[in-house]
C-alpha cells in the first residue's frame, strides 16, 4: 500500500464517521495548505471506493466516488498548486498545497491518472508506486542539505569517515607505522632541549649552594658526577646539539615519508573516484552539473589531499604535543601545572571565537572582491555599450561603490586581526605570569628548583600554541572529512550494470529496433515519452520529427541505453535491450552529435577514438568517406593537427565531418544522427549530407534534424508531440495527411521563404 503519510487519529475517526473502513485506505497524503489558502494541515485520502479531502480536524471537505473520477491533474499556481479531480463534465479543486509539496502531488496525480486508465482497462498493469522524495533535508535531523548529494554535515559520522580514510593505508602499513613512530620520536626530541633547561640550571650551571639545596634528579646525578668544571657543561651542550640534530633529521624523514604517504593516499582515492565516475550511469551526471562532477574530482580530492599531506601532521603532532607536555608538567610539579590550566578555557574559547570571526570576515571580503571583479568584467566586456550610452560616470560610480565595500570589509578583517591576536597572546601571558608568581614563590620557599621553573616557562608556550590553533585546524579537519564523505558518496553509488548474469550475446546486431508501449521520464512522475510504439526494420532510416522538448533526444538516449524505460520495452533484434550486454550494444551504436566533442590530441587520434589501433589507412579512408580528407590534408600538420580544447580551431562543419569519420570508422550497426547538420552553413551542410548519405547505407539510422529538408533520405518519419508518437510514415504520406508534420513543413517553408527574400534584398 503506497501510504505516504499515515492518517492521524482524527482522520481515521472522520473516515469511520463517514462510514468508511480505515483499512480500505489505499493512499493518504498530507498537505500544508487549507482550503481557504492559509497554512494548515489537511489530508488527501484515496480509499477503495472514494477520493476524499479532509481538513486538519478530520472533517470531510470533499468526497467523490472513485468510480466517477475520470481524470486527475496537478495544477501549478504561483507558489503552490492544487490537485484537481475531473468527474465527468465537472471538476473540483480537491486539495491545495504549497510549492514544497508540489513534487509529491505531481507524482500522485500522475500515478492516479495511470491507475484510472488501468481501472478503465486502458492499461494492463496497475501502475507501480515508486515515489522517492527529493533529498532536500537530512532524514535524521531535518537540516536542509547543501545539495542532493552531499551528506548531512551535522549527522555525518566523522569518526567513521576518518576510519575509512585510514583504511586506505592498509597497503602501506609499514610506512604508516614508520610515520607514526617518527612523529612520536620527533615530538619527544623537540621537547628534550626545553627539558634540558632544568638540568642546565639545577645541575650544571648551579652554584654549590643551589646544588646543595636541590636534591638531584636521576639524570642530574650523572651531570653532577662530572664535577663543577667545564666538562658537565660541554657534555650538556653536546647532548643538546645531539638532540637538535637527531630531531631535525628525524623530522626530515617524517616529513618526506608523510608527504609520500599523503600523496599516495589521495592519488589512490582520486584514481578510484575517477574509475568509478566512468562506471556510473548517466543518470548520475544528469542530476549534477558538469561543474559539480569536476569539483568532486579536483576540489574535494584536492582538499582531502591537502589535509592528508599537511593537516594530519598538525592534528597528530599538536595532539601529541599537548598530551606530552601536559604529562611532563604534571609530573614535574602537579600543583603548578594546575595553575597553568587556568587560561586554557580563555585560550581555547577566545581562539575559537577569534577564528570564527576572522573567517567570516575574510569570507565576506572575498565575496565583495569577486563582486568587484564582476563589475570590472561587466563594464569592460560591455565597453561599447557603456560608451554608446555615455554611461561612463555611472560605471565609475558603480565601481567605486564596490571598491569601497571591499575596502571596508578588508579593513575590518585586518583590524580584527590586529586587535585580537595580541589580546590572545595576552591571555597566554597570564599563564606565564601565574607561573612566575606561583612558581616563583615555590622557588623562594625552596619547594621547587629554579630549573624546574624555567622549564615550566619554556614548556608553557609550546603548550598554549597548539591550543590556540586548535580551532582552525579542527575546522580544516572537519571540512576535509566532508569532502571525503562526498567522495565516498560517489564511490558508493551504484555503477551502471555492464553485466548482470543472464545476458544475451549479440556480437552482430542486425539492427531491428522496436519500441513497445514505452514510457519514460527522467523523473518518474514527469514522463517525457508516453506509450511509444515504433517498429524499425534493419537498415531503415527513421527521421525523428517534433518540436523541441517533444522527446526526440530522449528516444535516442534510450536506444543508447543511457537510461532505462519506466514501463514498456525497447527491443533490439527482438531482445530486450536491458538483457543485451552493454559493451556489445555500445560497440555497435554510433553517434554523431550536434556539437561533436573532440578530445585533446591529433585529428588521427580523434577519428580513431572509436577503434583504438586503427591503421592510418583506415583513418584516411574514413576521413575521405566523410568528406573530411581534403581539408585535413590542407592543414599544415595534416592528420597530426592538434585539436581539442587547446588545439587548432576547427569550424563547426569540420568538427562535424571529423566526428562523422569517427562514426564511419566505428562502423556501427545502429547509427544515431542528433542534429548533425544544424550548426553549419548550407554549403557545408551539402558536403556533410553527402557524407551522411554514405554513412547510413545498410545501417539502421535514427536522425534528428531541425531542418526537415535534411531528412529527405529517411525511409520513414516518426512525429512526436508532447512525448507521444502521433504520426508515422513517408514524407509524401504525412504531407497528404495534412497533420502535424504538414504544419511543421509549412512553417519551415514560410520561414525559409522569408529568409531567401531577405537574402535577395540584402544581396
Amino acid at each position, binding site marked *: 500500500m503506497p501510504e505516504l503519510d499515515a492518517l492521524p487519529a482524527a482522520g481515521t475517526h472522520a473516515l469511520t464517521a463517514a462510514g468508511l473502513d480505515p483499512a480500505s485506505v489505499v493512499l493518504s497524503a498530507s498537505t500544508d495548505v487549507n482550503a481557504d489558502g492559509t497554512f494548515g494541515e489537511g489530508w488527501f485520502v484515496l480509499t477503495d471506493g472514494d477520493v476524499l479531502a479532509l481538513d486538519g480536524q478530520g472533517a470531510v471537505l470533499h468526497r467523490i466516488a472513485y468510480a466517477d473520477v475520470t481524470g486527475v491533474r496537478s495544477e501549478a499556481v504561483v507558489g503552490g498548486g492544487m490537485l484537481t479531480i475531473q468527474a465527468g463534465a465537472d471538476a473540483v479543486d480537491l486539495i491545495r498545497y504549497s510549492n514544497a509539496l508540489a513534487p509529491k502531488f505531481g507524482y500522485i496525480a500522475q500515478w492516479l491518472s495511470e491507475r484510472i486508465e488501468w481501472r478503465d482497462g486502458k492499461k494492463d498493469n496497475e501502475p507501480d508506486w515508486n515515489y522517492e522524495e527529493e533529498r532536500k533535508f537530512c532524514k535524521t535531523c531535518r537540516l536542509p542539505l547543501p545539495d542532493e548529494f552531499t551528506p548531512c554535515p551535522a549527522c555525518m559520522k566523522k569518526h567513521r569517515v576518518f576510519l575509512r580514510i585510514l583504511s586506505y593505508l592498509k597497503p602501506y602499513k609499514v610506512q604508516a607505522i614508520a610515520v607514526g613512530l617518527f612523529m612520536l620520536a620527533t615530538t619527544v626530541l623537540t621537547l628534550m632541549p626545553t627539558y634540558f633547561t632544568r638540568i642546565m640550571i639545577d645541575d650544571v650551571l648551579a652554584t654549590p649552594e643551589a646544588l646543595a639545596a636541590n636534591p638531584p634528579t636521576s639524570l642530574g646525578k650523572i651531570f653532577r658526577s662530572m664535577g663543577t668544571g667545564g666538562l658537565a657543561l660541554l657534555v650538556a651542550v653536546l647532548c643538546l646539539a645531539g638532540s637538535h640534530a637527531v630531531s631535525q633529521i628525524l623530522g626530515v624523514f617524517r616529513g618526506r615519508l608523510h608527504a609520500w604517504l599523503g600523496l599516495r593516499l589521495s592519488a589512490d582515492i582520486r584514481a578510484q573516484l575517477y574509475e568509478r565516475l566512468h562506471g556510473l550511469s548517466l543518470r548520475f551526471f544528469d542530476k549534477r552539473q558538469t561543474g559539480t562532477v569536476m569539483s568532486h574530482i579536483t576540489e574535494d580530492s584536492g582538499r582531502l589531499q591537502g589535509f592528508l599531506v599537511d593537516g594530519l601532521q598538525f592534528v597528530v603532532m599538536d595532539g601529541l604535543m599537548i598530551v606530552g607536555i601536559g604529562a611532563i608538567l604534571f609530573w614535574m610539579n602537579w600543583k603548578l601545572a594546575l595553575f597553568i590550566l587556568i587560561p586554557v578555557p580563555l585560550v581555547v574559547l577566545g581562539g575559537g571565537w577569534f577564528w570564527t570571526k576572522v573567517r567570516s570576515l575574510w569570507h565576506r571580503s572575498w565575496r565583495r572582491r569577486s563582486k568587484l571583479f564582476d563589475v570590472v568584467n561587466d563594464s569592460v566586456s560591455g565597453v561599447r555599450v557603456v560608451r554608446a550610452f555615455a554611461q561612463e560616470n555611472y560605471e565609475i560610480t558603480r565601481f567605486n561603490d564596490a571598491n569601497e565595500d571591499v575596502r571596508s570589509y578588508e579593513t575590518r578583517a585586518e583590524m580584527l586581526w590586529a586587535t585580537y591576536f595580541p589580546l590572545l597572546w595576552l591571555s597566554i601571558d597570564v599563564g606565564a605570569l601565574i607561573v612566575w608568581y606561583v612558581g616563583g614563590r615555590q622557588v623562594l620557599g625552596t619547594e621547587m628548583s629554579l630549573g624546574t621553573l624555567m622549564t615550566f616557562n619554556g614548556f608553557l608556550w609550546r603548550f598554549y600554541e597548539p591550543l590556540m590553533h586548535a580551532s582552525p585546524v579542527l575546522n580544516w579537519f572537519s571540512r576535509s572529512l566532508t569532502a571525503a564523505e562526498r567522495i565516498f558518496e560517489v564511490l558508493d553509488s551504484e555503477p551502471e550494470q555492464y553485466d548482470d548474469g543472464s545476458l544475451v550475446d549479440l556480437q552482430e546486431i542486425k539492427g531491428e529496433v522496436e519500441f513497445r508501449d514505452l514510457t519514460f521520464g527522467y523523473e518518474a512522475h514527469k514522463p517525457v515519452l508516453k506509450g511509444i510504439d515504433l517498429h524499425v526494420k534493419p537498415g531503415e532510416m527513421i527521421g525523428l520529427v517534433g518540436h523541441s522538448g517533444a522527446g526526440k533526444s530522449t528516444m535516442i538516449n534510450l536506444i543508447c541505453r543511457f537510461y532505462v524505460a519506466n514501463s514498456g520495452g525497447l527491443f533490439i533484434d527482438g531482445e530486450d535491450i536491458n538483457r543485451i550486454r552493454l559493451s556489445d550494444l555500445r560497440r555497435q551504436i554510433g553517434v554523431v552529435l550536434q556539437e561533436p566533442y573532440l578530445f585533446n*590530441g*591529433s585529428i*588521427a587520434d580523434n577519428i580513431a577514438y572509436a577503434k583504438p589501433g586503427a591503421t*592510418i*589507412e583506415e583513418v*584516411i*579512408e574514413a576521413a*575521405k*568517406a566523410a*568528406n573530411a*580528407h*581534403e581539408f*585535413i*590534408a*590542407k592543414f*599544415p*600538420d*595534416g*592528420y*597530426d593537427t*592538434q585539436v581539442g580544447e587547446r588545439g587548432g580551431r576547427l569550424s563547426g562543419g569540420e568538427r562535424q565531418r571529423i566526428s562523422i569519420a569517427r562514426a564511419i570508422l566505428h562502423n556501427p550497426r545502429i547509427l544515431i544522427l542528433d542534429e548533425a547538420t544544424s550548426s553549419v552553413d548550407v*554549403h557545408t551542410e551539402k558536403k556533410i549530407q*553527402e*557524407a551522411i548519405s*554514405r554513412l547510413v547505407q545498410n545501417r539502421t539510422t535514427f536522425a534528428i534534424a531541425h531542418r526537415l529538408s535534411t531528412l529527405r533520405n529517411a525511409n520513414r518519419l516518426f512525429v512526436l508531440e508532447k512525448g507521444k508518437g502521433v504520426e508515422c510514415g513517408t514524407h509524401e504520406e504525412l504531407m497528404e495527411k495534412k497533420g502535424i508534420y504538414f504544419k511543421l513543413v509549412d512553417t519551415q517553408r514560410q520561414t525559409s521563404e522569408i529568409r531567401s527574400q531577405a537574402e535577395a534584398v540584402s544581396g
Partner: protein
Amino acid sequence: MSEEATSKSKDAPVVGSQAAPPEPPKVGDEDDFVVRYLEPDKTRLFRSPLGSPRLEIVGEVSYPRVTVRRLRPLSDPEHYVSVWIGDDREIGIIRDPAELDTDSREIIAEELGLRYFVPVIHRIVKVKERFGVHDWQAETSRGTLTFSVRGLHDNLKQIPPSRLLVTDVRGNRYDIPDVNALDAHSYVQIQRHL
C-alpha cells in the same frame, strides 16, 4: 561549387597519349569518397622544362604542376605523401616515396623540403627569460638562430610522446622531434621552462 568547376577546367588533366586507360573511370560521385593510392610502379614525377613538378600516372594521365604535402608531417613524415593539383584537389596518396624511382623520389624530397619550412632544433644553446619573453638560441637544421617565444604555455606545444613544437613571436615554427634525444645541456635549458 562554381570555384571547383572553374579550377577543374583550368588544370584539366592531360590524358596520357600512349595507351588506353587500363580501367574505366569510376562513377564520378563515388570517386570523391574513395582514397586513391598511387601505385609505385605507375607513378612517375618529373620536372617541366621550366622546373615545375609534374605527375604522370603511367598509362593514364599526366598532371601539370602538382604539389605534395605530408599527411602526417609530425608522426610519419616519410610516408603518406599526398599529391595535389595545385591547391584544389587531391590526385592520390603515395604510401612510401622510397618505392618510387630515384628521380621521382628526389623531386618529392625537394618539393617537401620547400613546403615544410620548419627548422628542426638540434641543440639549444641557451633559453633566457626576461619580462615573460624567452629568448632562445639554438642550432637548427637551417642554421644557428635566435628567436623569442612569448607565453610558453601557448607556444610550446607538447605532442606525445616527446615531441615539442615551438612557435616564436613572429609566427615561425621550430620542431624538436624528441626532447629526450637532446643532449644534456639542451635538455636542461628546456626542462627549466616546461
